[in-house]
């Protein structure tokens, strides 16, 4: 069937709309602030035969850009091979197994077969970050886990909803293994309801244009997305581009982990080879294959934001499976750091490799860490235990157009940080500062953006502090002659004595008492271009405003 380009555009917009409506429904009804406020979720439509990504909501968390097509494909294969029971209409599978196309355990995926005339036409799937899935520490980010079992409950694909009805027995098992289980029902209902919204809207689209037309449009859009990506990557001259990015340590063994990347550009094709990267590590900084692929895709989307997310757009991007490295972790390697930290370092490697070839599109390295500081303890005033998270931003890389943004969100996220006032309302802490980190931007023609400098004090009771951050050893890379941004710094003052984590950016369960303080300085962005070429007026302004 041949389709006119207008019908194609309209169906493309229609498919995107289905996903956007799922995203909105999920966020607005979710309980977990991680989903509702931080938009740590994503919804999409996937092909019936192989799970290939047809469309995904524009407002989804960037790191999920390629993971659900992987997990849906694995689910389809398992159904074919009989490892997982076949679906009936109204069923919804739940799965969070990282090795079956996931990220970390907290990212829980739902998948619902979408039927037309008794046949599966496609799959609707979404991912939401649950605040807890059990494991050694609340929230799941254990900096020193050495096996996935310590990180939480692992679910293979099972049908949580059967013909529209939730299986209370499966749900009871889940609830018995996770913290704050009583509120999870709100997220489960929201996540399932979003897929229902998708079903209704997709049916409307198919009723309007006809199943055959939409099916043909999906195939044609996939081919055209591939063409579009090929044309864009042809802005890169043919040749090889290499880079190295470093992770401070895995949290258990205090040695840096290298990500070695070589990109080979041939006409219409980019080949990503991570050969030579560090072997699998003991601590939780391993990445599963789905997350490694997704990190490459999201980096390319940051470079070419005009390409809609779809399997076709990924076709010209060939990632050699990094077998034998920490970027292709196998069971039972711990993986809680893959989505939040390793993914950002993979993206940094892609940026660093391509910035010379695409100097107007690519920036110097951004802060590139989620800056996860968790504080768990007991508040004697309320008589309750608490777990607090402070996620923080850092400076973005300088670029061809201007200096980097200050205090930007992580490369893989899009969420707002909570206000200090809300943190102090909910937890027994008092912030002493929440400020621009002066002098942290890497020098350059356009300097890196400034990081954040915050300090807080535990007011009552006792608590334990944990940190999963990065860029403590090496700052975000400068580009084209620019300097690196400032490194991440963590300083704990206990009983008047200052203490820095051995792993610089990672440590777990540091005991704190009332009056103890934690100070974090997040990385500044890398500088772009020769600092000698910087406009003296900008330098003077930076000095006047105390920025550098």
């Amino acid at each position: 069937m041949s389709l006119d380009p207008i019908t194609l555009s309209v169906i493309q917009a229609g498919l995107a709309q289905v996903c956007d409506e799922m995203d909105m429904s999920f966020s607005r009804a979710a309980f977990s602030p991680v989903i509702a406020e931080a938009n740590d979720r994503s919804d999409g439509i996937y092909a019936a035969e192989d799970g290939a990504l047809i469309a995904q909501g524009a407002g989804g968390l960037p790191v999920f850009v390629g993971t659900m097509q992987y997990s849906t494909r694995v689910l389809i294969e398992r159904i074919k091979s009989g490892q997982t029971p076949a679906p009936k209409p109204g069923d919804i599978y739940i799965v969070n197994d990282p090795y079956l196309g996931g990220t970390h355990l907290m990212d829980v995926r739902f998948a619902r077969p979408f039927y037309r005339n008794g046949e599966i036409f496609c799959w609707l799937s979404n991912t939401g970050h649950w605040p807890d899935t059990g494991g050694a520490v609340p929230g799941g980010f254990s900096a020193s886990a050495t096996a996935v079992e310590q990180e939480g409950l692992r679910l293979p694909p099972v049908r949580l909803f059967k013909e529209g009805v939730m299986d209370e027995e499966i749900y009871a098992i889940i609830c018995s293994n996770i913290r704050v289980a009583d509120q999870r029902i709100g997220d489960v209902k929201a996540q399932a309801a979003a897929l229902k919204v998708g079903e209704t809207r997709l049916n409307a689209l198919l009723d309007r244009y006809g199943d055959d037309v939409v099916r043909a449009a999906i195939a044609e859009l996939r081919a055209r997305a591939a063409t579009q990506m090929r044309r864009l990557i042809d802005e890169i001259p043919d040749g090889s581009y290499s880079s190295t990015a470093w992770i401070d340590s895995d949290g258990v063994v205090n040695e840096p982990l290298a990500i070695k990347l070589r990109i080979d550009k041939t006409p219409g094709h980019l080949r990503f080879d991570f050969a030579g990267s560090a072997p699998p590590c003991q601590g939780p900084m391993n990445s599963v294959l789905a997350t490694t692929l997704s990190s490459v895709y999201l980096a390319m989307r940051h470079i070419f934001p005009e390409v809609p997310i779809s399997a076709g757009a990924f076709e010209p991007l060939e990632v050699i499976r990094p077998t034998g490295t920490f970027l292709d972790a196998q069971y039972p390697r711990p993986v809680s750091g893959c989505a939040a930290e390793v993914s950002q370092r993979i993206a940094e490697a892609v940026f660093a490799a391509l910035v010379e070839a695409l100097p107007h599109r690519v920036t110097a390295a951004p802060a590139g860490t989620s800056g996860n500081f968790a504080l768990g303890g007991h508040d004697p005033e309320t008589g309750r235990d608490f777990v607090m998270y402070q996620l923080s931003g850092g400076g973005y890389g300088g670029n061809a157009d201007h200096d980097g943004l200050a205090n930007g969100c992580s490369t893989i996220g899009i969420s707002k940080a909570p206000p200090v006032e809300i943190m102090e309302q909910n937890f027994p802490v008092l912030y002493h500062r929440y400020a621009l980190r002066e002098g942290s931007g890497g020098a350059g023609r356009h300097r890196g953006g400034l990081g954040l400098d915050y300090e807080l004090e535990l007011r009552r009771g006792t608590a334990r502090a944990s940190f999963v951050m990065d860029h403590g050893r090496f700052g975000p890379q400068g580009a084209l002659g620019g300097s690196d941004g400032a490194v991440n710094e963590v300083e704990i003052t206990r009983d008047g004595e200052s203490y820095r984590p051995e792993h610089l950016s990672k440590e777990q369960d540091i005991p704190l008492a009332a009056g103890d303080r934690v100070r974090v300085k997040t990385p500044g962005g890398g500088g772009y271009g020769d600092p000698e070429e910087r406009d003296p007026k900008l330098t003077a302004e930076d000095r006047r405003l105390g920025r550098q």
Partner: protein
Amino acid sequence: MTKGSIIGVDVGGTFTDLVMVDPATGAIRLAKVPTTLDNQAYGVLSALESAEADLGAVDLIVHGTTTTTNAVLERKLSRTGLITTMGFRDVLELGRRTRPQAYGMKGEFRPIIPRDLRLEVPERMDAAGEIVTPLDEDALRAALQTLLDEGAEALVIHFLHAYANPAHERRAAEIAREVWPNDHITCGHELLSETREFERGVTAAVNASVQPLLERYLARLRDELAGQGYAGDVLVMNGNGGMVSSKRVAREAAKTVMSGPASGVMAAAYTGRQAGEPNLLTYDMGGTSTDVALIQGGAPPVSNEIEIEYAMPIHVPMVDVRTVGAGGGSIASVNAAGLLEIGPESAGATPGPICYGKGGTRPTISDANLLLGRLNPGRLAVEGGVSLEDVRGIFADMLGAPLGLSPEEAAEAVIRVANAKMAGAIRMVSLSLGADPRDFALFAFGGAGPLHAAALARELGVPRVLVPARPGITNALGCVVADLRHDYVQTVNQVLQTADMATLHTVFATQEAAGRAALAAENIEILDTEVSFSADMQFIGQSHLVRVPLTSANPSREDLQKGFEAAYWDRFGVELAQIRAKVVSLNCSVIGTSDPVDLSVLIGAGESLQPVETRTVLFDGTPYDTPVYWRDDLPEGATIEGPALIEQMDTTLLIEPKCTARRDPLGNLILEVRP
């Protein structure tokens, strides 16, 4: 006593519009003149001149202004200093750790107050409002002196947790007033006493830094008007859709940032109520963007969380108008996938679409309308010397060739894709407010709105479109029909099960009393006073709020619980009996209604239904002989079957095939769209 005329005058980005109504005779005058950007008062005066208004016989002038909006967007602000809590001067620049777009790691942000004018003093409250560090008054005096030496004209005092205990802010303001040479002092807790230091701080900073500008502008305008014999007061439209005396409005200047869009929505709500259409999806399509709002039960929605651009939240109650991108000037292009795209680039007002003849060389939505015969080719810019053939040539080269279409087919494609995208964006606005667009009528206004209304309605599944008599001056009409209005929000943060209901009732009573007192202070004749109450609620542990309308100021616990459950079900289709609810804040609106204006005076009724010409217009590739009517000629009750075009001074309405337009007694056109 006979009543004098009322004038509504709205200053928009391109035009200044005026409506003058004489309630005694029903006479009406309209004017549309170019906006004068450097001093909006000149445009206002020239509009008055154009309408030949006798200012001695005018009772009231109501003014919608973009003075503050433009000042903020262009950062042409008064020099303003900030004094804040030690350790927190960068809050205004750090924001909430975001970036302007999800993909693409570039972005810039200019804080409202530069870093060297942001000073810190020792003082600290905790979240419970207890003093942790007393206010250091010597440090405060020194900081004030520094700001004065630096030439600051306005001052913001913004302390952490001042919503819980404003004592330090109040004391600091008291001291500041001793030395500050004017009264441009804004405290963070004054405009909206809510948690969240960035949003509250930005709101206060915007308020302070536009206050002197707005005050000077209005003083100049009052002087000019007085010089021409006007003895009455000038009222200004606030973003909440109510009017406030120009002598007091600058005190809370931040509330005027949505003045123009709010007027448009107020006019739509008023027109809808008169026409028996209380539920409207309003759609204002201009040159660069389209604004959308949702009116339910005749009342426009008010939100406390408007963000006027990236990282620029203004948290005061304002009419909830969302900007959804495309306008007549949005540019069409073919991307690397060979697919047609509309926007996000726009030709704006300069150079504008090709057909403006001001140097535009890229195809836009307006050009597509022209090529299809939907816009009158007789109105092509003469000075620029652009011909229909020029437009056709550009469509052939830039769109037709790569898509394999004729120029006309390409133009239809542009319209079709643009409509699909706009309908999607409108749907998202509607859904985000928890409403199904099919339950609404579309209210189309703005210069470009009525051209797309029928197609959008069909796309959205909306059965009816209401096109007001004067779509191009809707904002000015909003000024004439506006009420006096005061909104109050109080954060209470109480679990419903254990909430002290008496305290909640006291909050409502206090809010209502404050509103009534404020109305009395306006010294303007009020027909009636309406008071409404609502609660913003959530389930414990959740972050989104659901607004629960209440029928009384003394709701019982059960009223709140039931109301919340119903509102939640309406919005999300989920019920969660096992989780407890929380009352986050209480809201009260006090509205003083004014004399109704008879809308039928806006447009006269003609005698007979005669087209002024017949033009060939393309629909789905088929040329139709399409009659063109002049709107002012249409007799009452006139019914026109599509396809047809109805032209008027400021806009063109397209009646597509399978649509019927009917002129109602008020002069509105009601378009029925059949599937």
